[in-house]
Every structure is written in structure tokens, then in C-alpha cells.
């Protein structure tokens, strides 16, 4: 018994902080994932069904009004935009309250606080990955053959994740001090949905002769750039434009820096407010 104990003791604890956090992240993501579909009959299938159903209903209406644009495969265009925006929406909305929700834990256990907002981005990516099955189904249905451009998905996804983590770090720490953030964010997200060409196309704006500043706002919009990169990889099968790539990198870094700075500055006060 004592022999066992000593061998056990040596390997009991993880060797470094990063390894510990990785395991915590893993466990939290798996917890979120398990709880999401626990006791639902279709379970994980919903992650696939949800974007599919949304796409069918939206393309039923909007495909007619987009006739004039240069979107070729509207359902595919729509579903890619939807799930990409959905990834950001889920990651930031859950990230927003992640610190507040982890209050019981933070008050009792020593654990790195950034783990919680960051973990939400990972959970959102797992869901995104499942939604991709829906994209594959749509591609098979419309007999779209992917090309090597599909690899652009990876940098797009990576940059979007970094962006989401940065935003989550920022807003989750603000939400600790001002619970108004929770309400404000849901308004912002709704506005953002309309500002981003998810179900409409940029060509509609240009053909309607929208002024330059409207186009500038839409194009500078971070979500436009991530969605455009994603669409380049899956829908257009082309290399994303240089501006789009640079803006996507810019926004990701900006969000990350802002998030980390604000989070670092405020995190030691969290415990007094949660």
C-alpha cells in the first residue's frame, strides 16, 4: 500500500500550469458539451439540424430577392455565413457571463480566471465543427466539389477564435462590474447580424449605389472579413483578398490585446464583485 502511494504521489499532479489549464479547459468544454444535449432525444444531431433547418427556411424566402446579386449557390452561401456568425455569437454571448457564472468556483478554488471566457470559444468551435456536417450535406446535395482552397478555413477559424477570445475576455471582465453588459451585448449582437452580409450580399449595396462610408463600415466589420474568408474557402473556392486577410488578422490581434489588457488589469478585483 505504501509503495503504491509513493508511486501515485509522484504522478498525481500535472507538471506545469499550462498542462493543468489544458486539462481544465478540456473538462469544461466536455462538460458544456455533455450538458447541452443531455436528455434530448436527438442529442448531437441538433447541432447539424439547427443550421440546416435555418438555411432551408431562410433560402426559401431570400433566394428570390437575391436574384440580382452574383451569389451562385445561395443555400451554401447562407449556411456558411450563418454558422460562422453563430460561432462568434455563441462564443461571445456565453463568454460574456462566463466569469459571473463561475463565481461559486472562483470564490473557492484557485484557478486561472481567463480559462472561463477562453473555454467558451473552444466550446463554440466544437459546435461549429458539428455544424460543418450540415455544410457537407448541403455541398453533397448541390454537388459542389471542394478544391484546395478549403485549407483557408483553418486560418479563418483560427483568427475568428482569437477574435472571440479577445472579445470574451474584454466583455466578461466588464460584465463583472456592470451587469448592463449582458443586455447591451444582446442588442449589439442583433444589430451586428444585420450589419453583416449573412443573408444579403455586398453586391446588393454597390448596385444600389450605397455611399462609400456605408461600404467602408460594412467592409471594416470584423465579421464580414471572417465570413468572407470562410466563404472563399467553401463557397467561392478562391483565395481571399489581401485586405480581407489583413483586416481579419488586425481585428483578431486588436481584440486579443484589448481583451488581455483589460482582463489583466481588472481580474484581481473580480472576487470582490462576483
Amino acid at each position: 500500500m505504501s509503495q503504491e502511494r509513493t508511486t501515485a504521489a509522484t504522478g498525481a499532479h500535472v507538471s506545469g500550469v499550462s498542462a493543468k489549464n489544458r486539462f481544465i479547459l478540456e473538462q469544461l468544454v466536455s462538460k458544456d458539451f455533455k450538458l447541452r444535449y443531455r436528455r434530448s432525444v436527438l442529442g448531437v444531431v441538433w447541432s447539424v439540424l439547427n443550421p440546416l433547418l435555418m438555411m432551408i427556411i431562410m433560402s426559401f424566402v431570400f433566394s428570390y430577392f437575391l436574384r440580382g446579386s452574383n451569389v451562385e449557390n445561395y443555400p451554401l452561401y447562407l449556411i456558411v455565413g450563418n454558422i460562422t456568425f453563430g460561432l462568434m455569437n455563441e462564443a461571445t454571448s456565453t463568454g460574456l457571463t462566463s466569469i459571473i457564472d463561475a463565481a461559486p468556483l472562483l470564490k473557492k478554488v484557485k484557478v486561472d480566471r481567463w480559462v472561463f471566457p477562453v473555454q467558451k470559444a473552444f466550446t463554440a468551435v466544437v459546435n461549429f465543427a458539428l455544424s460543418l456536417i450540415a455544410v457537407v450535406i448541403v455541398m453533397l446535395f448541390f454537388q459542389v466539389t471542394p478544391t484546395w482552397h478549403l485549407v483557408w478555413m483553418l486560418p479563418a477559424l483560427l483568427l475568428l477564435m482569437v477574435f472571440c477570445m479577445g472579445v470574451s475576455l474584454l466583455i466578461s471582465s466588464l460584465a463583472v462590474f456592470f451587469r448592463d453588459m449582458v443586455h447591451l451585448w444582446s442588442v449589439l449582437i442583433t444589430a451586428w447580424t444585420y450589419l453583416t452580409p449573412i443573408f444579403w450580399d455586398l453586391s446588393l449595396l454597390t448596385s444600389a449605389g450605397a455611399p462609400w462610408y456605408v461600404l467602408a463600415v460594412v467592409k471594416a466589420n470584423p465579421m464580414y472579413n471572417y465570413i468572407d474568408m470562410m466563404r472563399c474557402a467553401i463557397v467561392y473556392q478562391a483565395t481571399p483578398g489581401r485586405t480581407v486577410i489583413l483586416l481579419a488578422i488586425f481585428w483578431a490581434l486588436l481584440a486579443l490585446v484589448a481583451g488581455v489588457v483589460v482582463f489583466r488589469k481588472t481580474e484581481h478585483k473580480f472576487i470582490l464583485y462576483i
Partner: protein
Amino acid sequence: MANTEAPEYAIEVDNVSMIFNIANEQLNNLKEYFIKIMRHELFFKEFRALNDVSFKVRRGEVVGLVGTNGSGKSTMLKCIAGVLEPSEGSVTVRGNIAPLIELGAGFDAELTARENIYLNGALLGYTREFIDEHLQDIIDFAELENFMDMPLKNYSSGMVARIAFAIATVTEPDVLIVDETLSVGDVFFQQKCEDRIKRFIESGNVTVLFVSHSMAQVARICERVIWIEKGVQRMDGPAKEVCEAYRAQFEPVPAQAVEKVTIERLVADTADALVGANARTGLIPEAAPSGAPNRFYLAYTGMPQGIPGVRYQVKKAGAYFYVTLDPSLYQVVSLKDQEGRIVREVIDEGTYTVEIDLADHARHRYDLACTTYEFTVKRFGHYADVNSAAWYSVSVERAYNLYYLDEAENNLFFPESPITPGDAVCLISRMAGGPGEKDEALAWAREAGIVDGLPGFDAADTVSREQYAHMLANLARAKGEYAEASLEALSDISDADGISDWALADVAWAVANRVMGRGGFVNSAGTLTRAEAVALAVNYQPESLDGHDRVVNPRP
């Protein structure tokens, strides 16, 4: 672990201060915040939970942390556990900590026990391989083999605590923090936990920080004790010395001064009658303040001065009806002349047992004295023939509650029947605190001069109103409360002409003191009924009326 290289100290606390800014108001939204900033009204009060505390704990040392409540022990522990960051100074802990402070933090009620073990293990810093390997150990120790795949929400709190303890202690930690308030599951499991902690201590490798209120326990387990009081480190030294010094601060209360506390009175409110088991033997009920329905009071004496904590459990038919276990719920009573009272709501009829023990919570002395007492709650309505709408019902109820009356026989009171001289004497005797049995009451009445100067009293089997007024006046004389009243008071009596000469002064006294109702009749309305006698007796003791109006005899 490479002990040879490791520094000597497992825990180093250097000049730690913990300052909380307590906002005067809680500001949770932007609007409030900006308004306050604009008005320059954002004030904070500084609260120092810890003030410049420093100590070092050697590897393998067992150190006790003592201090009264709110002294900063918990804040210190949280700083060491890494949950709180000190405002000033630094805390260094070498090695992994098993904080047995708050078990089960990070458990999710929806997940199964197995899933929670992994989640909690991750938070404690275990590796996945380690948990895989020791899952069975944890399950075995928690004795919950068959419940592993059940969501935690279906677990009892004891089961949750078992799992949590099993995870936290599955491996020998470098630093173990044990809070005395930790109690896990049933007695057997507690023993098992204690054994495990003891083994850690005996191994000599584990640094233990032990927090307790019990000096005996601290002195037994720890070699060294640190005493923190109001955030300031008061002492740090050998366990024996510090414990003695800690105890010395409570010296003003000598332990031997505590004797058995006795319950003197049991007090009921008007809405419910409370009948003490020893109703006839010295329990004198007292009127409760009005406007407090459904309450009972227990008044007690014999408590040492300055001990404000009373813990009590009320059981009904063996089951707990009301319990104060949480020390913060200790009833704080104002103490005057070593007396106190407990106020609690009573709802149903039945026999209750009260177990009272006294504690000096501020000084952490518990179980100073205890006593058990039994009482019965009865709702009014013992007398089937007393209509609650009748003018005398309030008086009869009062009198019953105050033990002026016998237990009902066959549930009947006969309110309209003439009262016998024996019963009248008995009633007055009880009211005055005399004996309750008829023969003894009569003897008492003769001795006290209650029946003096009553022509033909012994032979009669009824009592007239003027005779009764005379008896009450005699009682007042015996108690020295009698004051001659002007005969003008008689003008309030409707048949003043018919009053016997010898009774004039006493009836006038009764009317002037509002014992007898104005506008009533004395001799022309027949003999005194039982209900009237009770009403007059209650009128005589106005303090017992508890805010109710005096009952005025409405007879024609």
C-alpha cells in the same frame, strides 16, 4: 519529491494585508455608477480584514490557526489557498494544496459523479492518467460504487461531500488545510476522514494548517499555534502557550458560575392557550404583549450574566419542530437579572419539548448549560358551552390560560349557572396565587380575610354580586391595593338602591376600579353566574387583559 532541494518552508506569509473597499451602496449598473461619479458621491469604506500578518510554516509542520469569528481566519486561509490575492504583501505556497475548506467546489449538479470526479480532479491539478488510475480508490473510499453514473443532483449533500473529500485526499498533498467546520456525512464516514487526515499528519511529509474553535483539539493536534484577532496577528508560538493566552481573554466569565438554567415561566398569547405541564406547581403565566399572535415565550433564569446565546430545539412528538443549530441564529436576548426569554412561533396544538442550551457565542463557549422542558399547546375551545361570540368568552379564555380555572370536565363550563361559594373562593385564591384545591383555598381565604364580613356566606350555595365585590375588595385590602372610593361611583349602577349597606363601599370600589361594569345591575339580576365571576376576576387583574377591553356586564 526532491525534498533535499526544496526550500525549508512550505508556506510563507510576508506582511500580508487584505483590504476590502466596502461601497456604501452596491452599484451594479452603469447608470447608477455614472450618476454617483457625477455627483461625487462614490464613497468607499476601507475595511482591513488582515493587517500586516507574517508567518512561515516549515515543511511537515502542523500549525493551528485560531481566532474568534470575523477575526480574519477565513480570509487568511483563502489567501493561502490562492483564491484571494492579498492587497499588500505576498503569500508563497510550495507544493500542491488540498484545501479541505469548501468541498465540492466546481461540482456540477447535472453531471454524473464520475464526470464530476474528472472535472474536480482537473481543478485540483491532477492528471487525467492519475484520475483514471485512482478512480476506483475514490469510489471505494466514498462508498458510492452503485451511484457513479447518477447525476449529482440526485445525491444527498452527505454523498456529495463524501465524493469531494475522497477526490481531495486521494493522494498525499504537500499542504493540507483543514477547517474544523468541515463535517462529512455520517459519524462513521467522519471517523474515516479523520483517520485519513491523521495518517497525513503522522506521515510527517504533509504540512498541515488546522483551523478550529476548539482549543482542546488544537492543543492536541498542533505543535504550534498562530492567533489572529481582528486581522492582527496576536501571537505565534507553542500550542500550549497560545491556547492558554487565547483562553485567558475569556476569563471574566468563570466557568463554575454556570448552573442549571431553569425555565420559570411559560407564556402564551391570547390566540393560543399554552398550558404548562406543571401548571399547578408554580408556573405563573404572564401576559404576552399584544399584537403578537401565535407565539410563546419561555422565560428562564439562572443564566450567568453576560452570556447572550441561547440555542434551543423544539421537538413535537419526537420530531424537530424548530432548531437553531447555526450559531448565527443564536437568539440574542436582553439579559436583566439573569433572566431571558425566547420567543418563537407555535402553530399547532400538541405537546412540545424544548431543549435549551446556552452558549457564549462571542467567546466560543458552547453547552454552558442545558435543560429540557415540556409544554402543551391548546387552542382555545376547551369548553363546548362557551360560545366564542358571547360577551364573557374573552374573559373565560384569559382565565383558562392563566390557570384560574380547572381543566374542563366533559368539556363543559356551565357559564350561565350560579357560581358556588367554593368555586368563587377557589377562583380568587388562584388569581391571588393561593392554593387551587377547594378546601385549601377556603382555608387560605379565611386566613387572608377574603370572606370576612360576609353575612350568611357559609350557609348559602350561591354568591351575590355584592358579596363577590366584597370578596374582591377584601383581596385588594389583603394585598394593600385597596383605596376608598367615593360613593358617587354608585351612580353608575342601575339598581344602586338595592345594594346592602355593608356592601356599598365595596361595590363603589369595584365600579371605580372598573372591576364591575357601569350601567350594570347588582342584586336585581339574580345571583352571580360563573361566567360573570370569571369576568370580574379578570377585570380585577387588568394587566392580564393584554390590551383587551374590560368586559362590561351587559345584563339588564
